[in-house]
């Protein structure tokens, strides 16, 4: 299964997915991207992830702190805030409705539009 989804699909879903990962527990950047790639969403580059996280921080949905690493320089650990949880709950709910509807339209399209030989 090819793990590079279209960029605009990713852009639409990524912020919510990152919030959802953080709702499971605080994590640093690399752990977040591993969790997402493990879920089949694709490999998120640092250059996409950190600006997204800093926008979430600016919105008050996430907080960040530097934790000392065992062997080397520290890691920046991100945690969801109550405000972030509210936003996630609301938006994820809407997303599920949206995708249910698009899935319905697309399922019938996939079923009927069989490629002609």
């Amino acid at each position, binding site marked *: 299964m090819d793990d590079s989804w279209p960029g605009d699909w990713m852009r639409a879903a990524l912020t919510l997915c990152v919030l959802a990962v953080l709702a499971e527990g605080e994590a640093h950047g690399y752990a977040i991207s591993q969790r997402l790639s493990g879920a089949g969403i694709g490999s998120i580059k640092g250059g996409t992830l950190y600006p997204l996280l800093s926008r979430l921080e600016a919105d008050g949905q996430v907080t960040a702190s530097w934790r000392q*690493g065992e062997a080397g320089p520290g890691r920046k650990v991100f945690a969801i805030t109550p405000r972030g949880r509210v936003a996630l709950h609301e938006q994820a709910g809407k997303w599920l409705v949206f995708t249910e509807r698009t899935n319905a339209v697309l399922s019938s399209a996939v079923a009927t539009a069989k490629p002609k030989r």
Partner: protein
Amino acid sequence: MRGPVVNAASEGLSPQMKQYREVLVMALRTREVPGTRIGEIVAEVESHVAETGEDPNLAFGPPQKYAEQFDGLGTSFGVRGVLAALLGGAAGLALAEGVSELRDGGAFYGTSVPGWVGILLGIALAALIVPVVPRRRRERVIDPRTGQEIQAWPRWIFPLMATTFLLTLAGLWWLG
């Protein structure tokens, strides 16, 4: 194998990362991103790359492009830019005329000001450019992991500036 944690942030960086950091800091300063924010951005890149072992150019894109998405006060040229250019021009003229007076014994712009004073005036005018440069661009960049200042000027820049200055004076002397 690693030294004390306090210095681990800047030592043990790959040459690639050092280079990336220099360009990134310069690009962010140019966009007038606050110094503390620059420190955060750089530390994020370094700590991520330290863990994944990736090339920062691949993980974050070219440093100048990466810097573009961060908001600063902007890159406007503005009044300060014009003032800096005027000071630079005036400094150059004072230096040239001062050197010329020393060499040929003429008058410093028709006055009896000695050449030395002209050269010092030129240096003073050039030094005045520094406070004119927007403060943001000169802010200290602090690494949030260590609290230490990130030195992101390429090490050769000060010898280069000194050499350029001396060569300029020499040039003015021999070619003037």
